[in-house]
């Protein structure tokens, strides 16, 4: 071919700036959708509040917190666990959104546009972090009513929130990869449930780890949901009765950051590769 194609006025912006601005457009699109499908957000919030109430008032009384005699201590202990669980489950929301986009054909439209290849994914995870921040606010307010509070200072509080959102960001990339890998929304739902349920429950989110059989304890202790929850409890001065001399218990924040790094290092390339190869 020797013919020179006609240049178009808008082609060739390229580079990081285009990736960023396209990502913002996709992020805008994903955020715009939230109030249009209010059921999704409402049920996510109801589900989390349900967990707060269930554990605070139903199971809570039966779960003794080693070293604490105050019956209210469990509720204060519980809330960071619910935050961690909610964040972990958010990856399912991401996965379902991604699969839905594929099924509806909008991903094909995006792939036929001269936009940054990364934008569909970065826009999605960016929007999901904001979405999770909103749900966290609702949860903190309802948690405050059942006796949760922050006993340290604003800075420590902010670091805790930042850690939760950073973890949400990492989890959204697992959701992106998963969402692109499953054939339908229903399968995506099932798979995320099967993966995320054990991760959140074999952790210190709802029960102290020393109540588990000893062979399970190392798993629970290294579990990212545990280290995240432990970090937040430590930062906010909430009850945190389990502290062995093992590394994850001594350095929960460091281990959580390591987990975030590992998850991103694995799932960002996987997700990007999957996106490139969809239907190729």
């Amino acid at each position, binding site marked *: *071919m020797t*013919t*020179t*194609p*006609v240049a*178009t006025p*808008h*082609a*060739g*912006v390229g580079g990081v700036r*285009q990736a960023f*601005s*396209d990502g913002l*457009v996709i992020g*805008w*699109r994903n955020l*715009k*959708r939230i109030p*249009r*499908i209010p059921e999704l957000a409402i049920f996510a919030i109801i589900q989390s509040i349900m967990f707060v109430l269930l554990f605070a008032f139903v199971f809570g009384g039966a779960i003794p917190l080693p070293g604490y005699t105050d019956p209210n201590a469990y509720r204060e202990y519980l809330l960071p666990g619910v935050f961690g669980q909610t964040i972990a489950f958010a990856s399912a929301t991401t996965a379902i959104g991604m*699969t839905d986009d*594929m*099924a*509806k*054909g*909008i*991903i*094909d*439209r*995006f*792939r*036929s*546009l*001269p*936009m940054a290849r990364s*934008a569909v994914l970065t826009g999605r995870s960016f929007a999901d972090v904001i979405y999770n921040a909103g749900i966290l606010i609702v949860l903190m307010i309802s948690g405050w009513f059942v006796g949760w509070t922050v006993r340290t200072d604003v800075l420590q509080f902010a670091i805790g929130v930042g850690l939760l959102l950073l973890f949400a960001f990492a989890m959204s990339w697992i959701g992106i990869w998963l969402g692109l890998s499953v*054939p*339908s929304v229903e399968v995506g739902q099932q798979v995320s449930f099967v993966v995320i349920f054990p991760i959140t429950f074999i952790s210190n989110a709802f029960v102290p780890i020393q109540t588990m059989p000893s062979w399970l304890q190392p798993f629970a202790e290294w579990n990212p949901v545990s280290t995240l929850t432990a970090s937040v409890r430590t930062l906010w001065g909430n009850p945190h009765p389990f502290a062995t001399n093992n590394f994850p218990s001594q350095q929960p924040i460091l281990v959580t950051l390591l987990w975030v790094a590992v998850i991103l290092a694995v799932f960002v390339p996987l997700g990007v590769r999957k996106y490139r190869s*969809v*239907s*190729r």
Partner: protein
Amino acid sequence: MSVIEAEGLVKVYKSRKSEVRALDGLSLRVEEGQVLGLLGPNGAGKTTTVRILATLLRPDAGRATVAGYDVVRQAQQLRSVIGLSGQYAAVDENLTGRENLWMFARLYQMPSPEAARRAGELLEQFDLVDAGDRVVKTYSGGMRRRLDLASAIIARPRLLFLDEPTTGLDPRGRLGMWEVIRQLVRDGATLLLTTQYLEEADELADGIVVIDHGRIIAQGTADELKTQVGGERIEVVLHARADIPAAIERIRPYGDGDAIVDEHTKRVTLPSTGGAQALVQVVGALNEASIAIDDIGVRRPTLDDVFLSLTGHAAADGQGPEPDDEPAMATGRAA
């Protein structure tokens, strides 16, 4: 130069059990300003062809350039000069029409104010002004397709792909869509249109390529293709089956060949070049013999007849076990 030049495209879908050659050495050429209709039944390879030319799919063999860009090596440049309107209306149903258009315009790299202006223009052009600020979920099928088409021409593409633009629309929606497409053609658009409706290719396209099993089996203008299966014929549907032999005897002098009889539908088809004059004579002859008829008319061969004579099966009925153009799993779509 040609806007589309495709040479020997091959695409094979492999699954655990079987291999489907969706495209089997397809070559294609579309000139500037031409409307090419790609015609074929489900599973013929129409959508696969469009997906390869629109950079969504890599061919396993062969090469193609669109507007001078190689579909594999220069995919990103190519994307800014094409528009794609899919078989499934790929707009965001949770955004409004205006928001959809603005978003796609931004992703075609227009600055925001220009994107907003273009969105307004297109809503007007496609008669969606009143619905522009409503969420797409509330749109009718026809409105959705119009919005989808509007999204495809945002950047004033040099070439527009329309993959089965009226599949699933009701007759009114289809006529509306045809009108919109005709307007684009009048404005000089170059179009590659796929369809399984022969009538649609006949209506909209100036050149037709008939494909089946990933291969071209015929091409030409609609008239050229029709000539291949012969000219006009007079069709009589008799009231009583018993009259068939007598009717054939009576009308034979007005035809140019042997009558074809369908016993089941009591239909007698007679090749004839006599047009309306012959028709009047046939009616007179049958009347004189007191043979009652249910229906009579001069029929031109449709592309359905073309398809039947080329492939041995009708265009509308599927291909038995063969899947749609590509396995549903691959795109995550329900077929």
